[in-house]
């Protein structure tokens, strides 16, 4: 069963001669529990695609279905609640709230939903993320890897069906990158979550179940990661210094 279905979405910025077609009629679907990597050169439209899937931005044309629901047919408020409960976001620059502790940052989406936090699940997450002894620290008191782990915790706390990660290892060193990816994969398996991750790293992309490439607003499905290992297309997406 497909958790995500993207149907012919296009995004155009500007009008007339100055129009920029960021996405051109992209369609694909992702089954539940799959770990998908999106690769592509800078400015190819990867982040735009991820923002559409996460309902952070609206497409010019096309539809996105998550768990069978047309997300752009929802009203602003319902969409916010839907996003809060069903989609977890992980950003390259962590985007933790500087005034909140690690624990408060992780609980933030639950608190926004005016729900009582599940303490057992929180403890479990803190333990999995190896942040138990850092739970009362502020983001400014953590290393980059710890901050990203906290951001992963925030994305997992509502047990969303879909996790969207925009270059989650972009600001991390090799060791931390490896840890973060393995955590994401572990979570994906443990909680049956679908993960869509943008990355520039060939090594990280190859750990995914499936690789999609966006180039000039168009999508190419490379299929299973092990089948595309070493292809010229993959090498083209890799940035200098991203080899791991």
């Amino acid at each position: 069963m497909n958790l995500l279905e993207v149907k012919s979405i296009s995004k155009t910025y500007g009008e007339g001669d100055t129009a920029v077609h960021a996405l051109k009629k992209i369609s694909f679907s992702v089954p539940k529990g799959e770990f998908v990597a999106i690769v592509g050169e800078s400015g190819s439209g990867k982040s735009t695609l991820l923002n559409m899937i996460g309902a952070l931005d609206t497409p010019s044309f096309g539809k996105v279905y998550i768990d069978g629901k047309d997300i752009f047919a929802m009203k602003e408020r319902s969409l916010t609640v839907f996003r809060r409960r069903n989609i977890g976001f992980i950003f390259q620059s962590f985007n933790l709230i500087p005034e909140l502790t690690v624990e408060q940052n992780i609980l933030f989406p639950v608190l926004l939903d005016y729900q009582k936090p599940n303490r057992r699940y929180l403890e479990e997450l803190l333990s999995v993320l190896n942040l138990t002894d850092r739970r009362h620290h502020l983001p400014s008191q953590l290393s980059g890897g710890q901050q990203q782990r906290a951001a992963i915790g925030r994305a997992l706390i509502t047990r969303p069906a879909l996790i969207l990660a925009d270059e989650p290892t972009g600001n991390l060193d090799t060791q931390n990158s490896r840890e973060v990816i393995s955590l994401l994969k572990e979570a994906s398996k443990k909680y049956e979550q679908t993960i869509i991750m943008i990355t520039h790293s060939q090594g990280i992309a190859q750990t995914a179940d499936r690789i999609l490439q966006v180039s000039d607003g168009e999508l190419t499905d490379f299929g299973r990661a092990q089948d595309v290992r070493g292809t010229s297309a993959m090498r083209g997406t890799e940035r200098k210094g991203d080899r791991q």
Partner: protein
Amino acid sequence: MKSYLSLIPISARIHRRQNRMTLLCIVISVFLVTAIFSVADTFVRATDKSMKEKHGSWHIRLDNISQETGDKISRRADVMAAGWSDSFNLDADHPYYIGEKKAALYGADETYLSQLTSSLEEGGIPQNDNEVMLSSNAKLALDVQVGSLVTLRTPAGDTDFTVSGFGSDDKKYYQGQMYMTAVYMSRNSFHTIMAANAIEEHPSYYVQFQKISGASESIADMKQQYDLTDENISENTAVMGISGQSSSQSFNGIYQIAAMLFVLVLLAGVLMISGSLNSNISQRTQFFGMMRCIGASRRQIVRFVRLEALNWCKTAVPVGLIFGTLVSFGICAYLRYGIGGEFASMQVFAISPAGLISGMLVGIVTVLLAAQAPAKRAARTSPVSAVSGNSEAAASKRRVIRHNVGRIEQTLGIHHAAGSRKNWILMTSSFALTIIIALCFSVGIDFARGLMPSLKSWQPDLFLNGYNNALVLEQHTKDVILDISGVDRAFGTAYLDHIPATSSRPGIDYINLESYDENLLKNAEDEVVQGNLRDISGDSNKVMTVYSKDNPLKIGDTIQIAGNEVEVTCSVSGSLFPGERLVICSQETFERLTGADGLTMIGIQLDEDADEGTIQQINKLTGSDVIFTDTRVQNRESNTTYMALRLGVYGFLSIIGMVTMFYIMNSISISVAARTKQYGAMRAVGMDGTQLILMIMAEAFTYAVSGLICGFGIGLPLSYLLYDQLVTRHMGMVWHPPVALLCLIVLFVAVCAAAAVYAPAKRIRNMAITETINEL
């Protein structure tokens, strides 16, 4: 582009929307100062004219100088005009009469009457020794006109004169009274009459300088040259004061207050523009970072920000000046036609150079001063932090939030407000200062109201008063007056002072006794401070007293007067007669206690049908021992003064309120702009628009609530203290929390907070989430 500064107008065109608030702040500052100073300037000019009409246009008066010194002074180059004048019997305590009325005699030369005072109102000034000019009240009091023959009766004999005209050098003194008339004659006639009655003359010499601005130097020079002392010289305080040349302390006090208000408005302007510039700069951190990255020095950034601010003046100052001048026309029109009185002579469409220059100066000076801090802040921007992210957020210290109760968005909002101590204190102080000023000024208005008897419901339009407070008016005169067409109400009161008495309170050996008729007792109900005046009516043993810090008599005291005992059962805040140890009783009790049945005073309130005929009829009822006073003009002037005072106070409070509002709006805007990226992330992880607004509202209302607590916490005790010292102590009224004002303040603060939230919340909500995440 010739230089990097050519970027300023280009940047201004592109950032038109962001610059709107800053431009608005400059326009408001210039507008306020232009409007205030234009109105003040027009008022001063009108007052100058009316002061000269009322008090004469002479600048100094020299007493006890010889004719020779006077002649020398008149020939000085810095003297424009000089003339002699002498007077006698101004208090009407000598038996000099013209017709049936008491006469005050003046001997003055033509220069004094025509040039140094604008005395003449009708006819001409005396041209020979047989002519006199009478004060205008003589027309009604003596029923005479120009050309009539009048006889001046003096102890040494009678002299006949022809009336050459009407007027006076002190119009206010004679205005509205029928008891005494001024008689202006030539110096020769005056000398003859004084000599015949063996009265010594004391002529004074009046001097008008060429330029009032050089008056101080001229006076000092004259003192030295003619051996004059301070005792010889008196100044025309009203005229000198209005031109800023007076040595009078009270006038200089007024100028000090004006200077203080100017500084306050200047400070408010600096605060407002500075806040707005700060907001503008913080929203453009990346731009200044980029400038630094591509090689702009710190000094160049400072120059850029300053010139950018001055560039705004190009549009904002003229707009402020035009708007301020137009509003000053409106205020002047309201003062002239809506309030009248002493403002009736104000010009409506007067362009004030003083107003325009001060507005322009304030605009440019405040902008330069206000640009100082933001310019330095922009220059300090690190190239790296500016291009990489939000320096504001990174720089501020973080403290852990305690989130145990309440919703997370509210907790975060409160934390955003309280997180920066300095900002919190500034915002709280801003609200608190406005509240404290409003509470204190309201006490000032209450005090001013208490000082103005004309605002009391019983204030008469006309008074008949026995000379020296004698009980010469008969009871039935009041009834006769009530039957005259045009009379609305009349009340009578009797007064006797220093009546021997003893009291249960030690130290009382006399009292001053005053009677109230039923009309007055009814009106006194509004002025009761303590006790009940129900038992005072009719022939009773109950009396009341006036609440005053100097009055030893208190409620519960008993007083023995001529073998009768009365008890003080009530105290009121004021009475018709001033003085200590005042005991007020009913007319019946007064007659029983004193055995006297006459009245000292009859107060008359006129209705809309009253005309000169009404006044004539009432005047005819008065004998030579009764002073008839028409206080209608005085009452109107007092009312207009009070209205103008209120207008001034409320105007000033509005300015302070507006400045506070803009300051709060700017600060919230800065705070939101600084957290744009953070808000974007919050929205991405599930914060909806309403929660976002609630978070910003929580921040704004934290400032509002702390401002209210602080403002009320300091303002209310201060209001009580001031009220106690000014009003309760002198007028007896007891302080009550000003509930209506408090509600108004709460409403104002709530509106400020809500207005501060509106624009930033709208801005953030209208931004796409992706845009806010990528912002900065």
